[in-house]
């Protein structure tokens, strides 16, 4: 989907320290009955965020005052494991997040996030530990330089060069694939002759 370019982000963090947060927690299946990408933010982490009667839980980390307005989510390792539902990054973006920082992120979720302008930022375990322990930290993410800065720290992170280019330019990956038409046709002629 065409979107605004992602270059720099300056935001406070919200923290969900649990490891192995699966996409069923990010957006439970009962909210996958729609046919559009919109309006999923209110169901983000629904099982943890609301009590049985649907009222927000004051003790849920994202509901605390220091998390208000945070555009960066710091999550425990192996974030986004499980189902391939792209509703997970859609819900995070609709809620207001633009980046997820963790020490490891599941494959399908990471690919889905990149295609929607939600930046997965992989950091080393010690940086991760510092950020997990200090919700509300002000972080600066520079995708051009691939750096993450907070307090006196500045670390580099890796993003696939192609996905990075698409994010920086605000273009959809499908455009690149469509431009491969002659190579695709040649492959089909050779393989399915």
């Amino acid at each position: 989907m065409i979107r605004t370019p992602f270059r720099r982000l300056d935001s406070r963090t919200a923290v969900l320290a649990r490891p192995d947060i699966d996409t069923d927690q990010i957006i439970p299946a009962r909210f996958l009955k729609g046919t559009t990408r919109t309006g999923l933010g209110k169901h983000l982490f629904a099982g943890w965020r609301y009590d049985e009667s649907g009222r927000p839980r004051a003790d849920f980390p994202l509901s605390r005052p220091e998390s208000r307005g945070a555009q960066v989510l710091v999550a425990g390792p192996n974030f986004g494991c499980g189902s391939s539902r792209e509703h997970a990054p859609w819900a995070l973006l609709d809620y207001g997040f633009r980046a997820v920082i963790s020490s490891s992120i599941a494959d399908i979720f990471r690919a889905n996030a990149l295609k929607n302008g939600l930046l997965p930022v992989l950091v080393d375990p010690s940086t991760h530990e510092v950020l997990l322990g200090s919700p509300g930290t002000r972080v600066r993410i520079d995708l051009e330089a691939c750096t993450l800065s907070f307090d006196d720290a500045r670390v580099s992170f890796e993003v696939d060069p192609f996905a990075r280019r698409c994010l920086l330019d605000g273009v959809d990956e499908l455009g690149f694939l469509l431009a491969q038409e002659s190579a695709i046709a040649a492959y089909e002629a050779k393989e399915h002759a």
Partner: protein
Amino acid sequence: MAQSEPRTLFAKIWDAHLVSPETAETPAVLYVDLHLVHEVTSPQAFTHLREAGLRVRRPERALATMDHSTPTTPRKAGMPLLIEDRECAAQLSALEANCAEFGIELHGLESDRQGIVHVIGPELGLTLPGSTVVCGDSHTSTHGAFGAFAFGIGTSEVAHVLATQCLLQRRPRTLQVRVDGRLRPGVSAKDLILAVIARIGIAGGTGHVIEYTGSALRALSMEERMTVCNMSIEAGARAGMIAPDDTTFQYLAERPRAPKGAAWDRSLLAWRALRTDAGAGYDRTVEIDGSALEPRITFGTNPSMSAPIRGEVPDPGSVTDAADRAALDRALRYMGLRPGQPLLGHPVDVVFIGSCTNSRIEDLRAAASVLRGRKVASGVRTLVVPGSRQVKRAAEAEGLDLIFREAGAEWREPGCSMCIAMNGDQLRPGQSAVSTSNRNFEGRQGAGGRTFLASPLTAAASALAGAIADPREILR
């Protein structure tokens, strides 16, 4: 092409599907042979195509069905299925309209080929050795049982495949999981894969494609191999695969969409070369003794948290890593379990036999072998949900439906049912279920529900006991 270099099974399939190879700047362009489509992850992709003025490049390489949001309420032959949930009904209508507009074959609720997407692909003979298979569903790894490279994708990628029949992919690493030895009676493919996931961990396969090898794997039927490959994603792996052999070819012969005549002979010749060459290296290898495996059951809130069924709930106090200790403690509190308590005898409210992991005819036969002539415990709701209309018909022809009904279980219509709990089949808060499905995440089977993953044998034995039970005590 350096074809003489020894290559893994995965590398052979990858190389054969490269439209253009990857470079430092761009991922590979990988050709997709078969694209399976269902109602939940496709509507936004079709909208994307429509808005961009694109057509489906190769509609004959796509096949759609309805499974996730369909009710499984029993219905009489010839009677239409009533869909009470308006959102689900709208999603199903959208799939019908999209398939009609873009020319994609759809097996909807009135088709006698309808069923769970990962059950019907193999059943039709569409999943072939050496092919690439994708679907907007993480359990697409199931199809790797045929020696295919099969993996789950998101909805943006569904649009990519619809529009170009290709995907942009970085080449994954390879992980060999070698299981030798003979599985003991009462130990099934489900127990084997739960043991694999416990061993390598919930993220142990991230960035990798697993190739399962070894004598224990060779001895499995195709349906058992599908159960194994199905849960590769539960260890974080991109895909799981097993080299095709005579078991594979026998399964495929005579399937309606498999190659026929001279085309079959040509295919067979090519398929026999689909194996990892001697001397080809994997990035990692893990070895497991199949003869030492026991029936297993999960106790926690992700599929790596399992134990032998005669084991005990682990004690968080014995875990040294603080984050792991907190995660285990939280999981046990959610599940309502005490450290050190035996798993056997823990009461259950619901037993679910179904899902793309364990809803094929052999799974139903296994469950029926335990339930035959017996009664499920009073107060236990037992759902048996066949994976497809064809599985349902085959089971009824063998009289399995009668065995289930006489035992006091519900015999339902095909679909994902209580595995995904978005179709009316779900647990109530606090209920415990032994399920043959693939995920025991918090709330997966309904908000507040507690899931214990196990084999069809263990699920059926637990239905009889009204508590977690060892199927070997009944089979003995």
